């Protein structure tokens, strides 16, 4: 027990330090996606919820385990999907800065998706 606890505490502290190191380098623009990503990672609690579900042996245990599983699964699935949705929007940022030109927006107001060539500043669209 004591050795296990010591190992657990060691892992805990080292993981905290890794967390500090990895996070402190992220630019401000990615903070919302990052928060969402961290949010989905704590969905790992689903593993804990599954493990308590299998040792439950009375109605109260089953109810608690059921709620825990549902909560945790919502956290993990929702978290990753929402982070993915946010990051998908950064796709265009990969275009080189040299080619930075105004977003091509058609006159009817619908932004094109995909790789529509951007209009140049001298373009005479209207």
């Amino acid at each position: 027990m004591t050795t296990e606890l010591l190992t657990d505490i060691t892992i805990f502290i080292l993981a905290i330090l890794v967390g500090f190191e990895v996070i402190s380098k992220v630019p401000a623009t990615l903070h919302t996606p990052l928060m969402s990503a961290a949010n989905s990672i704590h969905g790992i609690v689903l593993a804990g919820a599954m493990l308590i579900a299998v040792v439950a042996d009375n109605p109260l245990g089953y109810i608690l385990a059921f709620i825990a599983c549902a909560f945790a699964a919502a956290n993990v699935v929702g978290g990753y999907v929402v982070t993915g949705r946010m990051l998908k929007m950064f796709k265009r940022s990969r275009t080189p800065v040299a080619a930075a030109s105004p977003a091509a927006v058609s006159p009817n107001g619908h932004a094109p998706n995909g790789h529509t060539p951007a209009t140049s500043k001298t373009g005479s669209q209207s």
Partner: protein
Amino acid sequence: MSAWSWVTQLLYVAAAVGFVLGLHLMNSPATARRGNQVSTGGMILAIATTFALVVHSGTVKPIGWAVMIAGTLIGAGAGLYMARTVEMTAMPQLVSLFNAVGGGAAALVAINDYVRLAGATTGLSETVTIFTILDVLIGAVTFSGSIIASGKLQGLINSAPLTFPGSRIVNTVAALVAVGGGIYMIVTPSVPVLIVIILAALAFGVTMVLPIGGADMPVVISLLNAFTGTAVAMAGFVIGNWALIIAGALVGASGSILTKLMADAMNRSLANIMIGGFGTGDSGPAVEGPGGDVRSIQADDAAIQLAYAQKVIIVPGYGLAAAQAQHQCAELAALLEERGVEVSYAIHPVAGRMPGHMNVLLAEANVPYPQLKEMDEINPEFPRADVALVIGANDVTNPAARRPGNPVSGMPILDVDHAKSIIVIKRSMGHGYAGIDNELYYNPKTSMFFADGKTALTELTAAVKTLVG
């Protein structure tokens, strides 16, 4: 250690490597998506390993399986639905909601463990009890606090700081009961006391978040995110699971860093936010507005100013997000660019509801990334700007922040008042979260365009097209 435990532990470590690499890849927009995929891979591995553990144990009753599978499927379905359908503007409250359920699940893991072992002959060890108590307290506070935070952002609960007579006393009593009960439980295991501290922690979470105003909510959500991570790590100690400990600690650390970054951006200390209460009135007497005349402007005049400017800086704020006007904004900007106007966006670190929230919204509207300028980069450019177009941003543009003695004092602001002229799109003269008048609106250079962000931008775009086509 059996070969089986070796394999599962190593798989958990591999999953943890996935989480760390995933977060690392989120350093740059170019690799961020891959980061999320790597992190997802780690999560699938961790869950699959757990599933294998469960199957291997061979002691699961059918009802146990039913509970586990039904709970997971229902939760996953709900999470998937919410994540798919949520508007990008409502993202912060969804993150808060996921915090709530994550913290709740972590608390339930420990509660279940405690209740089960309290009835068993083996009894409870003191070390496990300590982690159980920490998990339950942090998890319960996160659960109720996050729901309140989410409700405030969604507008279900008044986003103004809410206090009732004696609310601080209730808060203190709840904290004392929770901590006192926890200490009692270490000495004397007791399920009734566990229930008492759960209720006390829930009450503490509610009374902790209620008095905090909407403007500080991003910081609070970030803090609660760190709380959830910590609660999950504590749950890991309770059931002796490395995956939970590592992932929980990672999130706890990252959430703390983010919280500090956000508080710094608003020039507020965390203690100040949690105790002081932004705009509760106890941070100083309300500042009377400077008075003076407010000039209002119509779409046509504003459009002409914009169309004949050489340099326009757009200052998007929460109003833009609330009106879902990011597409209209991008359209107007593109139209101006076609006319040869130099357009850039000034992004305040806490514009919108979270750091980077505005970037996400504008990226959704396909605004080219290089046009988005952060505060330190854009502030020196304001004096060269012919027009600063403020869309639904308030407190982050208030020059009063440069003077001491008012609720926004010391907050870093965008130097919008240095621009040659200023157009403010706003629905009314209403106050921002700080609850004070914005002196910018009384500046002789400022014209107010009173309209909803979306309507105003649509009208402006149409006016630019017809007037100067």
